[in-house]
């Protein structure tokens, strides 16, 4: 009874407040209804484009990926229980070694399933980022340049500089060999190969070659990548359910 009375009250009140319900209807019809996807996407996407910026800020006309933007996002993705997986899309020329390794380590230690796709190019420090994910894809036409690291700016001409550079190089090699199926010697051979790049040392590895060397897991684009990610998410769910029992 109470409900009915309230309903009746509710119906009477608008008639007194608003003289024309027809006007209200016309206004409602005039609004466009944008189709909305479900509010929370369970798969989030990180794009790593342009140069990976290090400690030096690049001028604004450069397209850059800043680690101070990416790392809090990765932390947020790890903490948000609604996010179940992460897709990393790479089209980068490389950049700062420390910043690139920082992003790679963050992605590798993420507890949620991660899949990376290299589109266009994933050069130099983009290589550890690509292999840091649980499964990596490369587009058939995409390339990855593997080359030794280099220093810019003031270099002191002492043997210690070389040792420092050599140690930094080992960090990259160790990370890549640990997170992919490539052998250390094979990776070093590609890195120090002569005659492949004009006036430079290294190798430009194209799509299926990267898979052949064991650097990348498979050739494919966004479709296979999302399919794989959903598979990994399902496996992750099964595992966590199994632990509860």
């Amino acid at each position: 009874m109470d409900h009915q009375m309230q309903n009746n009250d509710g119906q009477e009140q608008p008639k007194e407040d608003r003289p024309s319900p027809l006007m209200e209807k016309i206004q409602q019809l005039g609004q466009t209804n944008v189709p909305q996807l479900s509010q929370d996407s369970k798969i989030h996407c990180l794009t790593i484009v342009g140069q990976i910026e290090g400690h030096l800020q690049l001028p604004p006309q450069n397209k850059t990926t800043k680690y101070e933007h990416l790392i809090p996002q990765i932390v947020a993705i790890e903490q948000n229980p609604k996010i179940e997986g992460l897709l990393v899309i790479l089209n980068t020329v490389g950049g700062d070694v420390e910043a690139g390794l920082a992003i790679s380590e963050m992605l590798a230690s993420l507890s949620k399933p991660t899949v990376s796709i290299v589109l266009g190019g994933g050069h130099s420090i983009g290589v550890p980022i690509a292999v840091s994910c649980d499964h990596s894809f490369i587009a058939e036409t995409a390339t990855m340049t593997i080359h030794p690291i280099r220093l810019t700016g003031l270099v002191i001409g002492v043997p210690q500089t070389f040792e420092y550079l050599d140690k930094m190089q080992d960090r990259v090699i160790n990370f890549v060999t640990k997170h992919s199926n490539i052998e250390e010697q094979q990776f070093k051979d590609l890195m120090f190969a002569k005659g492949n790049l004009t006036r430079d040392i290294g190798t430009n590895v194209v799509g299926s070659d990267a898979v052949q060397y064991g650097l990348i897991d498979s050739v494919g684009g966004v479709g296979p990548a999302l399919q794989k990610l959903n598979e990994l998410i399902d496996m992750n769910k099964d595992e966590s359910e199994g632990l509860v029992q």
Partner: protein
Amino acid sequence: MILYTMMPEELIFPLDSSTYNTQKVVTHNGIPLLVEKLEGPECRVLRVMSSDPNHYMNDAYMPGTKITLT
């Protein structure tokens, strides 16, 4: 003049520090955006910085659109 050097361009020809202040990252309605400052509170969206793919479907924050910061 040709400079054969391994030094990055911005180290040899440093830009005025004011050019670095034309862009900034703001959060508008929960969406992180890279914007270019225009006159007054107006800004032009350069890039959506979010990791949520749904944020890229929002027409109001398409790169190139102008937003007013409050």
